[in-house]
């Protein structure tokens, strides 16, 4: 989710070098947000785009989902920490088939020096799907409390540490994240590439410690059970794979 915002930031980076203010909007059908726990224990991850063919749910899935045994059974339910495969099922090709779970807009005042960047990405957490209906319902009702807090917001204030490598730009987005109505400063790692029709694709990822879900964002500690209580979880990742399109007239 934060990634989304960050992604927006990336837009700034990749935009054409014009001094005029450029405006981008999130292509909701082509964009997704995700989270993943480390260790994922073969089931702790979710996406807003389960339609993506490279994505698979974890063990204990509900009916109607396919898993790939070669991947899913590699470690089983074991609590083996691994921060190298995050997200576990990345997207390899952008296709406009996702649930429209996010909206957003970015503006860049100076696309030469990348100043005056601002943007906001909003994610609807009720569309985060793990593939197990009961688990998703629990996350919506007991964790994110979507009836009370209908969205997650990612505000991008600036982009720093730009690194250009061919057509790819790596950067860090600085801004804030709002979950459950609580706003905290965040930084997201970004990878920005060009997408068709003048668009930009921004893949973003950030990590927090499990305790921060409680201390920073006010999640109910008892709702997480042993994952946090017994310190089984080591890291919580949030990310996005966002496609931005030039707004009409830009």
């Amino acid at each position, binding site marked *: 989710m934060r990634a989304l915002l960050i992604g927006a930031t990336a837009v700034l980076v990749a935009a054409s070098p014009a001094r005029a203010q450029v405006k981008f909007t999130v292509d909701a059908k082509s964009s997704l947000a995700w989270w993943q726990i480390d260790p994922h224990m073969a089931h702790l991850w979710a996406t807003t785009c389960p339609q993506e*063919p490279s994505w698979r749910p974890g063990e204990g899935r509900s009916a109607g989902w396919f898993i*790939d045994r*070669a991947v899913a059974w590699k470690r089983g339910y074991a609590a083996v920490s691994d921060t190298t495969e995050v997200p576990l099922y990345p997207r*390899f090709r952008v*296709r406009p088939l996702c649930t429209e779970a996010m909206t957003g807009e970015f503006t860049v005042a100076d696309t030469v020096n990348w100043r005056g960047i601002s943007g906001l990405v909003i994610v609807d957490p009720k569309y985060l799907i793990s593939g197990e209906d009961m688990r998703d319902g629990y996350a919506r009702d007991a964790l994110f409390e979507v009836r009370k807090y209908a969205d997650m917001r990612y505000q991008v204030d600036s982009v720093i540490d730009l690194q250009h490598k061919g057509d790819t730009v790596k950067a860090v987005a600085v801004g804030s994240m709002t979950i459950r109505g609580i706003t905290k400063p965040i930084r997201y790692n970004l990878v920005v590439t060009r997408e068709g029709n003048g668009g930009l694709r921004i893949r973003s990822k950030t990590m927090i410690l499990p305790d921060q879900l409680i201390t920073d964002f006010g999640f109910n500690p008892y709702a997480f059970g042993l994952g946090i209580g017994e310190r089984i979880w080591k890291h919580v990742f949030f990310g996005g794979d966002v496609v931005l399109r030039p707004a009409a007239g830009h």
Partner: protein
Amino acid sequence: MFRRMMSAVLLVAFASSTVACHSYVLVRQPLEFIASQRPPEVIVTGSDGAKFSISGPQVFGDTVVGYVNGQYQEVKFNNVGQVRVRQNANGKTALLIIGGAAGVVGIAWFVSGLGAATQTGNVVTDCDDDPTQPGCY
């Protein structure tokens, strides 16, 4: 005689238990089939003759996508020779059930006959206990 019958029954039971209840059948219109039926797995024979399994296949235009040996792959349909899909094999399933039932009956028959005495005239002798008795050889 009894042991031969028993061996035959067990052989049939074993043979029937080793045949699968599924078989892979050729799909005539693979793209349409995968798009409409969403099978969990298909076996693809590439135009080069290589065979591989695609897990959770989906069709996008002229491309079949899914996981091959744990790796996400996109396969252009031009490169696909044949597609086979796993289907229930009713004949084999029936054979399995019949063979399994025969095996169970055979084992029950065999077990029920263990230790049975051989009757000779009015005298009941236990040949397992003393094979040298008259009527036991």
